[in-house]
């Protein structure tokens, strides 16, 4: 429970992001095109400031602020750090693509705004804050995806926008239904408030809210925008849209499932629903990825399957002690891995088929190494980041009574190996295509950084998740 006397600095990391977004936009509009890097630097400074404030705040106690509508606890703290790190990585990998273009400062500003929305989404412990955060996280995505003005991007943005608008309406509807039934929008009181309500009405409300969050996470059944955005948008937008919003959406899902009544007349088996969605996401994503020939589209489907694994700890929220740390560990590992894989594709913009990666190991051994590490991490090979996450997530799901889901996930992991190997094999294969365009120079730096990060998270296995207690502040 919060006090009425509020700490105005509790949201300092979020304030940094908001101020950074506005300043980036303002600076950019007063600068000539060849000096837009100044506005990008403003964005970077704001992100670093936000991360510093978030790191300081991690040491504080878990609590909720502003009459219990926003949780400042370990989960929010980890999301703040992960989102900022991922956004910095995305800005870095976008340098060759964006530098000197007309939309540089706008892109940076939109990235910061969406990052802010993602963080608020993760911290929201009130349905209305959740609704606002959803808008803040998703609307900049439309702008980012559509910014590259190709026909593929146009198609992607239309699809994303239509699905986003639909799920947004559903989310608002769900919030309204739940608020009406439970006579409150605060999670802490939602469990008791919904206790006596008719199960069917609660189901309508929860499913509608879930739909919104599943869109943001890119999970089945509202996933179809993900592969299109990954393929059609600019590398910057693709890397961001398929990685960062998930972080907020999954923690928000976790908070919601955790807050729903577990027993009594209003209780339904949400966990089973989430578990089934998890199984569907991983299976469908993997099956669809099998036949892809465009590396970015392949990554897009691969992220759909990753959401499946990420939903596993959500399905056992409150049932297994390690569910929340496992979720955060997986999120951190997944984020750096996926951003790293996109960074490699961004550094090699001319290579748009798996075959065109033939001989990469000869030409750019470091970049090939980074790609190998990221792809093996996506498969879940030790000692990479996602492996550590997978072990934690599998353990938590089994501990929570979902051993069948662990088996489904293990089989799916083998399936995912097939298409990742289809990419790895040409990279290290003999022969090679003629070099197209200039070689990657600075573009390779974020990819290498991410590759090192993937190994570091995997080997040091993250004191990050250790910072978090198993409980959320409500």
């Amino acid at each position: 429970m919060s006090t009425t006397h509020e700490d105005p600095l509790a949201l300092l990391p979020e304030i940094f992001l908001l101020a950074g977004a506005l300043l980036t936009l303002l600076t950019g509009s007063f600068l000539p095109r060849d000096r837009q890097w100044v506005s990008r630097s403003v964005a970077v400074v704001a992100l670093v400031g936000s991360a510093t404030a978030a790191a300081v705040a991690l040491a504080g106690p878990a609590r909720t602020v502003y009459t219990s509508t926003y949780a400042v606890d370990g989960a929010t703290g980890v999301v703040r750090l992960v989102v900022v790190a991922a956004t910095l990585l995305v800005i870095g990998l976008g340098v060759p693509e964006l530098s000197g273009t007309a939309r540089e400062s706008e892109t940076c500003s939109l990235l910061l705004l969406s990052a802010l929305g993602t963080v608020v989404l993760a911290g929201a412990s009130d349905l209305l804050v959740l609704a606002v955060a959803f808008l803040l996280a998703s609307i900049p995505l439309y702008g980012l995806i559509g910014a590259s003005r190709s026909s593929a991007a146009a198609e992607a943005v239309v699809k994303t926008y239509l699905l986003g608008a639909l799920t947004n309406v559903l989310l608002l509807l769900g919030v309204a239904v739940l608020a009406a039934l439970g006579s409150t929008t605060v999670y802490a009181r939602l469990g008791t408030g919904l206790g006596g309500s008719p199960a069917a009405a609660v189901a309508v409300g929860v499913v509608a809210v879930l739909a919104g969050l599943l869109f943001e996470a890119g999970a089945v059944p509202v996933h179809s925008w993900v592969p299109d955005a990954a393929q059609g948008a600019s590398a910057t937008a693709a890397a961001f849209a398929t990685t960062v919003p998930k972080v907020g959406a999954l923690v928000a899902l976790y908070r919601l499932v955790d807050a729903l009544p577990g027993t009594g007349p209003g209780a339904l088996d949400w966990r089973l629903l989430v578990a089934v969605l998890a199984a569907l996401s991983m299976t469908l994503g993997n099956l669809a990825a099998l036949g892809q020939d465009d590396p970015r589209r392949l990554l897009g489907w691969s992220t759909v399957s990753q959401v499946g694994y990420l939903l596993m700890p959500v399905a056992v929220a409150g049932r297994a002690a390690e569910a929340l740390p496992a979720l955060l560990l997986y999120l951190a590992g997944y984020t750096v891995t996926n951003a790293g894989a996109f960074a490699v594709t961004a550094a090699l913009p001319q290579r748009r088929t798996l075959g065109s990666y033939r001989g990469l190991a000869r030409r750019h051994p470091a970049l090939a190494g980074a790609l190998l590490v990221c792809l093996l991490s996506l498969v879940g090979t030790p000692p990479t980041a996602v492996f550590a996450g997978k072990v934690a997530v599998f353990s938590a799901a089994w501990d929570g009574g979902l051993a069948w889901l662990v088996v489904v996930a293990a089989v799916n992991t083998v399936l995912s190996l097939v298409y990742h190997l289809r990419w790895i094999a040409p990279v290290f294969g003999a022969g090679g295509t003629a070099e197209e365009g200039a070689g990657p120079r600075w573009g390779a730096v974020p990819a290498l950084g991410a590759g090192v990060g993937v190994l570091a998270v995997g080997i040091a296995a993250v004191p990050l998740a250790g910072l978090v207690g198993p409980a959320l502040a409500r």
Partner: protein
Amino acid sequence: MLSVVVFLPLAVACLLALVRVPDAAARWGWFALSVVEVGLVAGLWFGGPPAPAGGLRFEQRVDWIPLVGSGYHVGLDGLSWPLVALTVVVFAACSVHALGGRDRPRQQAALFCFLQTTCLGVFAAQDLLLFFVFFDLSIVGMYFVIAGWGHGDAARSALQFFLYTFLGSLALLVGFIGLYLAATPHTFDIVELARSAPLQGSGSTGLLVLGAVLLGLAVKTPTFPFHTWLPPAHTDAPAVGSAVLAGVLLKMGTYGFVRIAMPLLPDAWRQWSWVVLAVGIVSVLHGALVALAQTDLKRMIAYTSVNHMGYVVVAVGAAGVVAGSAEQARQIAVVGAVTQMVSHGLITAALFLLAGALHDRAGTYDTGSFGGLARTAPRYAALFAVAAFASLGLPGFSGFIAEFQVFTGAIATAPVAAVAVLGILVTAALFLRALQRLFTGPTTGHSVRFRDLGASELWSAGPLLALALVVGVFPGPLLDTVAPAAANVVDLVSR
């Protein structure tokens, strides 16, 4: 100090991968490393501190993933030491063999150094998750060996190898997680889990967890019916790759039986032991009979691996069958199993290195396209004959010691194991027939102008066979090392 042995090759691998040293430097650097490793392992064993009572030598423990109660925990006992020694010896032989190689030596040396770390790590690990990490990385390393340096349909064989063994390793991981969750407090520590045997008396849960672990280990071993990845992987792998795959990597599966499956899940093991025994007998017979039908020398050796590893499975299966008070017989079977791992590692690695010479010179392994080779390549013929006789279990070689113990122990506890003796007969027949086809008669086909073994080939396979002879003549030190640990395993599985 053990950690230095494990990670020194990795350090060299990173160095070789990052620094563009000349080819010759890479080859000799790898050779120097493997000599240092052999020296370190020998020095550690004879000069290191003795084991604390009932404990592990060179034990080391550091927290690693506290979230799931997993630590970096390594140490050696009588089960793991022979395999660590085998690993450094087989890799040293490969490094000698590779001195004559011309195909991207720097990358190859880096890859094999990396593989050496993963193999040593598997045998040194005393934590399930750590074991799994090295186990899985060895698959990645071998994939690149086959895909990068193989011949024929290498990409396809490598993919098949990766998919099969990765599926096996995931089954293993699921089993490990089951063990982890059953323990209170949750832990992945093997020593801790062996002490508490958390799934003891848990009925079907224990059986399912062991089922997952067995599936994972059976794919790696490989036993019938999970062996189908092995012949293509061997046929298309380079000689040194095959030597490491058969000599060391296959041992990870059988090592897992004695290190993990038996001591950690004793009552489930006793219930599954008839299945294990049956699978072992089928592997022995199936491997031998299919090998008999091969005309491709490398495929033939690959199938004899299924047969030879089958003896190990027979032994560990028999060790779980509790019939009366056959404690001693079961212990002999386990000692035989570990000895067989070492013996098979030495002999088969030598056989594969020798088979590689055929492909280097003639581009084929088809036994029908050679004949009368003894006349043009006497050194090759002599060495191959020694290897073949060692492999078929001639007294005086390590294989005899191992198989004798396996059968003594296994038949005493489970008389049905006697059926597997037929496997030895078939193996003898197929090796003699291969010798006859390759080396006797008039010199025909590719045998004409066949260049005899060079120094690097001679000095890679030769010492391995010499070691097999040493173990066969003076098995004492090896058996004395293994026996206490084997007794311990038998005690644990009888709980």
